[in-house]
């Protein structure tokens, strides 16, 4: 037994292992964070390619490139890959890199499980993407996989899709347990909860949401599995079940899920804006309470996705008002970000540009969400491109922009080198223009009645779709520039200082750049100014 231990005696001093073994076997939070981030970038490119196939087909009315069956597989897999493969793992990767450094911990609380959480993902997505090449094709029922499309009428490959969702769920739950344990147990002495950086706060609440709802999703796909293979009738009215029940269970998961994809973004923006406004964050406490309220409300609004399936009037009113209530804490956050910038000494480096674009464009997505919350209006908007425009505004210039902003902001801390500011700004403007050209016209085609998830459409929607497709290609290809900027910075960027940004506050900036392989073997002393600035 002591032989097992002997080899670890000097574990505090060792650097990374050599070659591939480093990445396969690592227990280091920075290595695992890097793996998560590159994985999510690969998924962004794959999911993005699917989006471009969709937009190419929709460039003109009529069927040009793909058949409708394949088109359905593209919309389905694009959604699933972006949600579960790109956005969520990117935030987990950021949490891995940043949470231990921000709270003054040596690593994540459970380092081996951390490695397991990551390595489940390539297997899960490998399995899911392989379904596209199976007989009968891959999942074609939309990323929300409503029964009976996903049960009675599903291709055989749905079984692998179900298991892939189970695996992603296991990965998310383990990742979240790790993050919660790290935050609750590994903060440096002196860092009270109300001194934690906001990225840490938002991730604490996100992790709680994940642990609460990923098992519910697992339950939903398990019932699908049983309906398909074991003859149960959960989602079949002929046996006393109900397909609408699937929607209730799915959205009980699904609505908290959308906050899982935006709360960490709130945290990131709350770091970047104070740095480049050179002011303390306005209303720290109210930011924390707002995030907590949003998380609470997220559990009682799910049926706003289902107004048109039929529901008692009392239910419609309840879900409408509860949904609109979310605008209050969200408004508090937007107000605080703007107040932070008010009379600040602002500069507009790339992360700041992405953060400001986040505030503006996410707010547009929030407002269209408010419109959708109004039950009678939703009868009109439901399943149109207006909905597509809404959730892409919160997810692309919302969640994705915040991730890109975070990468620009913390990259010098991670690799020790600055990125090329000129190219970064070019990337920002291409993305900003591309994203708006893509999604803004979809509000109009949606309001005019264009349904979502169709490969062909009526002639009157042609102009808006053409504009949208042009924007999508601009946006898609500018992400290759992002990849270039990041790789260029890692390989040959200018050496960065420890503090990196003159206005930056927080424990991670007290470390040298690049941050040492093991950050805080012994916990640092924390002052309020160091904690959240």
């Amino acid at each position, binding site marked *: 037994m002591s032989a*097992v*231990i002997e*080899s670890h*005696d*000097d*574990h*505090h001093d060792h650097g990374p292992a050599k070659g591939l*073994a480093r990445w396969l*076997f*690592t*227990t*280091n939070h920075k290595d695992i964070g890097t793996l998560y981030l590159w994985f999510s970038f690969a998924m962004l490119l794959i999911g993005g390619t699917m989006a471009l196939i969709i937009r190419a087909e929709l460039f003109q009315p009529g069927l040009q490139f793909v058949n409708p069956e394949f088109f359905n597989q593209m919309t389905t897999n694009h959604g699933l890959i972006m949600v579960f493969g790109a956005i969520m793992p990117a935030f987990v990767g950021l949490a891995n890199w940043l949470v231990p450094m921000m709270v003054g911990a*040596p*690593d994540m*609380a*459970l380092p*081996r499980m951390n*490695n*397991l959480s990551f*390595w*489940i993902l390539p*297997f899960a997505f490998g399995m899911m993407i392989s379904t596209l090449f199976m007989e009968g094709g891959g999942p074609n029922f939309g990323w929300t996989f409503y029964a009976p499309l996903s049960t009675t009428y599903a291709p*055989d490959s749905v*079984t*692998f899709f*179900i298991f892939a969702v*189970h*695996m992603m769920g296991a990965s998310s*739950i383990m990742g979240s*347990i790790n993050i919660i*344990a*790290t935050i609750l*147990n*590994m903060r440096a002495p002196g860092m009270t909860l109300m001194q934690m950086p906001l990225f840490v706060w938002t991730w604490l609440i996100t992790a709680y949401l994940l*642990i*609460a*709802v990923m*098992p*519910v999703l697992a*339950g939903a796909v398990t*019932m699908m*599995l*049983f309906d398909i293979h*074991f003859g*149960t*009738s*959960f989602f079949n*009215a*002929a*046996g*006393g*079940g109900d397909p609408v*029940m699937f929607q*209730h*269970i799915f959205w*009980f998961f699904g609505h908290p899920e959308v906050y899982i994809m935006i709360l960490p973004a709130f945290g990131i923006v709350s770091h970047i804006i104070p740095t480049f406004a050179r002011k303390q964050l306005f209303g720290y406490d109210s930011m924390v309470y707002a995030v907590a309220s949003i998380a609470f409300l997220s559990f009682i609004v799910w049926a706003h996705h289902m107004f048109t399936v*039929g529901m*008692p009037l009392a239910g419609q009113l309840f879900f409408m008002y509860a949904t609109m209530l979310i605008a209050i804490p969200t408004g508090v956050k937007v107000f605080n970000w703007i107040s932070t910038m008010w009379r600040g000494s602002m500069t507009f480096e790339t992360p700041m540009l992405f953060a400001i674009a986040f505030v503006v464009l996410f707010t547009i997505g929030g407002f269209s969400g408010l419109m959708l919350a109004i039950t009678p209006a939703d009868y009109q908007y439901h399943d149109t491109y207006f909905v597509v425009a809404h959730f892409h505004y919160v997810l692309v210039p919302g969640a994705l922009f915040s991730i890109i902003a975070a990468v620009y902001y913390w990259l010098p801390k991670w690799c020790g080198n600055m990125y090329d500011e000129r190219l970064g700004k070019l990337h920002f403007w291409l993305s900003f223009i591309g994203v708006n050209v893509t999604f803004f016209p979809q509000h109009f085609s949606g309001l005019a009645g264009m349904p979502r998830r169709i490969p062909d459409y009526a002639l009157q929607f042609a102009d808006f779709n053409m504009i949208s497709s042009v924007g999508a290609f601009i946006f898609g290809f500018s992400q290759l520039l992002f990849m270039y900027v990041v790789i260029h910075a890692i390989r040959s960027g200018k050496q960065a200082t420890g503090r990196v940004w003159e206005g930056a506050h927080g424990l991670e900036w007290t470390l040298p750049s690049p941050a040492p392989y093991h950050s805080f*073997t*012994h916990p640092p002393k924390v002052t309020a100014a160091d904690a959240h600035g």
Partner: protein
Amino acid sequence: MSNSNDQSVYYVPHDGWYPVVLAAGLFFMVFGLGDALNAMKSGGDPGWVMSALGFSLFAVVLYFWFAKVIAENHAGLNNAQVKRSYVWGMGWFIFSEVMFFAAFFGALFYTRVLVVSWLGGDGGKAMTGDYLWPEFENTWPVMDNPDNAVFTPPEQSIQLKSFGSLFTYLPFWNTVILVASSFTVHWAHSAIKKGNRSGLVSWLALTVALGFLFVFLQGYEYWELYTHYGLTLDSGIYGSTFFILTGFHGFHVTLGAVILLVQLIRAIRGHFTATDQFGLEAGSWYWHFVDVVWICLFFLVYIV
């Protein structure tokens, strides 16, 4: 800084091959299972072998992984803070399990209270009943499905009310067994906290025995239901909700009993002290959790 017993240092383990191999095992297990299920439904290559190999890999790695964690703990690498991480980890894992069952209890509530009554013509969706299956009646348990040609209904229900006497009712005795085992596992834990190893071993052995007895009786009940009651997975919503809830519960009891069996073997080999027994404590938390789920289940599935 080579002092591994420095209690101010949070122990961060060295690189290891367990997690990535475990993930691979998991992958082969479910991929093979998917193949097998699809082969049963529409022919093709069954993947049982791949699945079994994947499971074996998974189990073997898990064994090594836990052995290593235990060895590290015995070597004094885990300070109080590391131990707290395990406590948080287990607590939140149990919370995730609670939410997993919540989905199935939610399905039971939704179908039983809303769907069946709507299909039977009650409430705001009265027309549903008139148009779809006008003869269908709102009763629970559902002994006549809306479409009996598609889902053969059960012949007999297993609800307490169709039995009468509590003392000839097998689920009642299963409740007694499981509740009793929650006490015995607690006494086992209390024994070792007082340093009483023989008390730990005997109470734990009794707990494990009661756990497996529960699983055995549950299996016997299933056999009865399939052969004499006509209550099966495909006999409509009553069978669906019954088997998914009791089935996943039974699976978790089996898992909990295996966990406690491992703790029993460790206890016999001299693991655990009066001040350090988290493996045992975590197992006992899990055991109390499956017990609480069963009590909810006994009331909601068998009695009301």
